[in-house]
Every structure is written in structure tokens, then in C-alpha cells.
């Protein structure tokens, strides 16, 4: 049937003193109801900009959406007025940010911060909103909810703040939750707890989730589909199982090389691939990854690869997938078979 969210040919850039940063280039993907889609990629690859554009949080200026559509329940969010967008933000789509230490208002009680959305969107009375806020605090696994309701962010630990952020985000039962590196700033043990909480709540409420992460282990454990971004572009995307079994882009191979074996995946993190991402002021004409790619061919430098369809819903922007290209052994797969 119809998708919950469909992003089509999204292009976002920022005007800076140095020139125009093309942060997101021609990104298209969709999210189904109740599905978890992960976005992975190096720092600066445009993950945050992509999702913040969906939420209308890109500061304009300097930011500008140059092209594209963001269809949410078949309405183009980019065409909505500020007011119409305010009705969707926090009620139908909500967001959890990367840094729980700075993402809560330091001078407002936690309970009040959870209530705000309920009062604005669901027009709850003060007492109803309060009851629901306490319920949300309990739901995200914070003990002594009544007491915690009256506390300020500085009285919460990092993990609890992120739980509070999740409570804020889920208070109005959104259809889509965007989590931008929700666990990066947390301790490893807390990371697992917060992820479990999100998965758990997703099961209960059937909220779709876009999960941005640096951690392929997290992707393997939680997501159903994954989008690999590089230099503002989607270089590979597909179902998690299929993409991890049969990755078809050298950048994805690079990301996966750090994973010794799939069972211990959650212990590994992304290790840097040699070289650095291209200059987004004037991205190269050809494949953005070509300068760092061991398998780069002549055509890679001069012509942008199209999105080759590998399998159902599995796409890769790499010339190696062209029938005329030489067969390159997939190192990751090969390495794994040897073990």
C-alpha cells in the first residue's frame, strides 16, 4: 500500500562564506508503517541534514531545499505552511536528538517539558496532561515517576535524560519517530538499554523509526532496512539481511571490514576508511567515493554511477555493478567465508 513517508530527490544546501555546501544530494527513500529504517555513514555525510529537513528544522538561511519532495501520508511537507507543519511536528512526527545533555531546557521541569506537546496537540487539560506525563515517565522506565516529574534536567543522568527525550517524542503517539544518533553520547551499557527501550516501545505502539547511527552492530540488531550515505548521497540501500549478506558498494565494504563476525557485531564500531570525504563545496563530477576507492575505474572519475538494482529494494550506486565491469571479489564476504 502507500508508504508512511516518501522522500524523493531531496537536495539541500547551505550558503556559507566559503561557498555553497551541498549537504544532501538527490536522496530518495521511503519508510513503511511500523518499520525501522537505519541511516549510516561517516560524519558529515548529510544524515542529520536529511532528517532535520523532514522535520523542517533546517535554519533558512543559510540552508535551502533546492529540490525534492517529502511526502508524509501523501502530503508534501515542503509545501506546508509553518502552521500546518507545527501541527505535524511533535504529534505525527517527532524527534530524539543526539546529545541528551543539551537537548532539554535546563530551567524547565522535566514533567512540564513532556506536557507541552500534549497541551499543544491533544488540547489536554493541565491535570490530564500531568497524568499522561507521569505515565510517559513510567513508560520509558524511569523509577519514581511522580518525583521525577518535578525535577530539572540537571538532576537526571545522561541515560535518563535520553529516556526523558524519548518520553517527550512519544507522548503524542507519533506515526514516525526520528532518532538522530540517540545513543552515541551514552555509555555502552546505557546504549543497549535505550535501544531496547525504543524497540520495545515500537512493538507496543507500531511507530515507524528512522534511526541514524554510526554503529553497524546497532543496525544489524534493530533495523529492517538500511541506507548507507556518503558525501550527501545514498550509495547503497536495501533490507538489512540482504545488504549485510551481499553488500555491493566498496564504501559499504569499508564500513563492514571492521566487523570481525556478525555474531559479535554489536561490539564493533565504524573504523575510518582511508582518505577523507570529498569537498562538498564542489563535489567531483563522478562517483564521490572514487578518490578513496581501491577499485576505481576510469568511468568512476568522470561519470556519476546510476542506482543499480541488485535485488528487490536493494540498490547500489557503483559502476562495479554494471554488467561490463570486471568482477571484483567482495572482500568482506570472502573474508567471512574463510573463517
Amino acid at each position, binding site marked *: 500500500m502507500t508508504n508512511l513517508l516518501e522522500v524523493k530527490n531531496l537536495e539541500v544546501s547551505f550558503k556559507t562564506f566559503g561557498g555553497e555546501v551541498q549537504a544532501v544530494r538527490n536522496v530518495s527513500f521511503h519508510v513503511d508503517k511500523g518499520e525501522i529504517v537505519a541511516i549510516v555513514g561517516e560524519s558529515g555525510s548529510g544524515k542529520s541534514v536529511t532528517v532535520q529537513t523532514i*522535520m523542517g*528544522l533546517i535554519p533558512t538561511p543559510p540552508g535551502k531545499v533546492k529540490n525534492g519532495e517529502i511526502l508524509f501520508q501523501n502530503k508534501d511537507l515542503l509545501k506546508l505552511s509553518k502552521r500546518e507543519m507545527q501541527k505535524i511536528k511533535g504529534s505525527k512526527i517527532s524527534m530524539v536528538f543526539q546529545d541528551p545533555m543539551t*537537548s532539554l*531546557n535546563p530551567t524547565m521541569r522535566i514533567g512540564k517539558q513532556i506536557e507541552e506537546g500534549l497541551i499543544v*496537540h491533544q488540547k489536554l487539560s493541565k491535570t490530564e496532561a500531568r497524568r499522561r506525563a507521569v505515565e510517559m515517565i513510567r513508560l520509558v522506565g524511569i523509577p519514581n515517576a511522580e518525583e521525577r516529574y518535578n525535577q*530539572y534536567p540537571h538532576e537526571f543522568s545522561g541515560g535518563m535524560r535520553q529516556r526523558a527525550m524519548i518520553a517527550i517524542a512519544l507522548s503524542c503517539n507519533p506515526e514516525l519517530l526520528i532518532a538522530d544518533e540517540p545513543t552515541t553520547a551514552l555509555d555502552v551499557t546505557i546504549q543497549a538499554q535505550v535501544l531496547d527501550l525504543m524497540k520495545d516501545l515500537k512493538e507496543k505502539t507500531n511507530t515507524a523509526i528512522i534511526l541514524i547511527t554510526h554503529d553497524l552492530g546497532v543496525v544489524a540488531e534493530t533495523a529492517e532496512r538500511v541506507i548507507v550515505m556518503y558525501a550527501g548521497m545514498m550509495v547503497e540501500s536495501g533490507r538489512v539481511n540482504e545488504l549485510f549478506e551481499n553488500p555491493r558498494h566498496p564504501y559499504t565494504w569499508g564500513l563492514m571490514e571492521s566487523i570481525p563476525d556478525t555474531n559479535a557485531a554489536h561490539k564493533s564500531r565504524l573504523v575510518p576508511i582511508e582518505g577523507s570525504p570529498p569537498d562538498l563545496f564542489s563535489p567531483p563530477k563522478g562517483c564521490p567515493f572514487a578518490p578513496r576507492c581501491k577499485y576505481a575505474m576510469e568511468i568512476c572519475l568522470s561519470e556519476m554511477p546510476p542506482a543499480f538494482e541488485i535485488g528487490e529494494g536493494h540498490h547500489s550506486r557503483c559502476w562495479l555493478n554494471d554488467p561490463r565491469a570486471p568482477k571484483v571479489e567482495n572482500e568482506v564476504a570472502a573474508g567471512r567465508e574463510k573463517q
Partner: protein
Amino acid sequence: MYIVKRVLTMFLTLWVIITLTFVIMKCIPGDPFASDADVLPKEVLQNMRAKYNLDKPLPVQYVLYMKNLATFDMGPSIKSETRSVNSIIADGIPASSRLGLQALVIALFFGLLLGIVAALNHNKPLDFAAMLFAIIGISIPSFILAPLLIKYFAVNWHLLPVASWGTWQHTVLPSIALAASPLAVIARFMRSSMLEVMNQNYIKTANAKGLSTMQLVIKHGIRNAILPVITFIGPLFVVLITGTFVIEKIFAIPGLGKYFVDSIFNRDYPVIMGTTIFFSTILVFTLFLIDISYRLIDPRIKLTSGGN
């Protein structure tokens, strides 16, 4: 506990101020009867000195003064013999405090407003206009602004009365003249504070909740941006108090400032002491209140902790 400690330091501060003022005042050359020295016979002068204890050694004078002060008696004025210092202060308070409070309210209200408007229109014409206004406000001293205001609003355009005191119309120009420069400073302060706050992550969180711009600015922006500005109210208060001396002179307002300035020229020791003690008490108490209110607004600072 914190409050007790704070009150004790408050009194200690006042005591230091009183003592220092006493010592420094006595160091100014000359005495209250310098102008009478040629006219009056020696014996009369001696008697008058004795009446005000001026013939005793300095430490004795100090102890006597502090004893009286403990009973809130600040003695008689030397120049206007019929009046006590207490009554002089009581007479001056209404005009001075009205002028000071009006200026404070004007400076705070319009300063904050200007700063917020400028920040929300960052790098747009309104921002530039507000900041140009602020720079002018800061760079023109009140003793130049006051005559200019008088010239245009009172003399040329006959919009408001000038000089003396009485109706509220009389208070408008002096209040504006006094408020102008603190207003400008507050505006600049609030603007930069607001700009910083609106860039914080928690504003993005609030925005992602779907709040309107109004709610965003009022509930999440201003409350956090105003914190550093509150600390600034202390120094602002000093500016207002000292500013009133100049403004009261220019507008011929029967306030405390006039007595304060005159008493220094006349070496009217009890009045110098009285007015200084009065002003410093107000100042120290204001700082105390600001400290407390800061702790009420910012939950991260606790009243129980020793504070830092």
C-alpha cells in the same frame, strides 16, 4: 543556611563601607566651618566644633558616631542646623526613588524588548536599527542627553514641562535621560544572550514539539536568556543611583542627589555619612535580592549550597 551567611556578609560589607567613608571623609582637607572662620571669633568656632564632637580625637568621633547609628540616629546636619540627617533623607526619598524606579522600569522593559526584537530579527534591518539606537544610547552621556531632551521636548516643541517637580509630566524627561544608557546596555546584553540561547539544542527540541514561534521565544528563549542579564541589574543600579545626582541637578529635582553633592562641598560630615550609608544599604540589599532571585529562576543553583 545560605541566606544567613549572605545576610551576615551584607552587614559586614556595610560596616566596611561606613568605616571607609568615615576615614576618607575626614581626609578631605577643610572643615564645615572653613567659610565662617574669617567672620566668627575663635571661641565661637571652638564651641561649634565641640558641639559636633569635632574637637575629639578621630577614634572617639568614630565610636560616638557608630553608637548613634546603632539607634538609627544619624545626627543633625551641620549646615542646616534645624534639620536632622534623618529628616533630610526622608524628604529626599520620594523624588529620588520615583526617578530611579521609573528609570529602572523603562531601562529594563525597553532594553529587554529591544534586545529580544533585535535577536529575533538577527542581521535584518530591525536588528541593525535597534543596535544603532543602542550604540547612540551608550555613547551619549546623560548630562548631554538631558539638555538635548529639554531643548526639543520642552523648549522647542512645548510637549513637556521642564525643571522642578510636581506632576507626572515633570518626571518623563529626567526618567528618560537617566534610563537611556542602561537601556542601551541591557538591549545589547539581551540581544547576544538571546542569540546564544536560540542556537541551543533545547530550542531545537522545543521546535520539534511543534510549538509556535511565540511559545518558543517566551517559554524557552527569554527565560534562559534573561539569566545573565539579571546579574547585570546590580551594576545597572549603581549607574542609576549615581546618575540621579547629575540628573537631579540638571532638572532641579528635590531629591537626595542634590544634598549628597552639596554636603561634600560643604564638608557637612553627618549628611555625607547619612546619604552614603543610605545609598550603600540600598545597593547591598539590591544585590542580595538579585542573588536570591537568580537562584529562584535557575534551578541549577541551589539556595542550600554555599553558592559559587
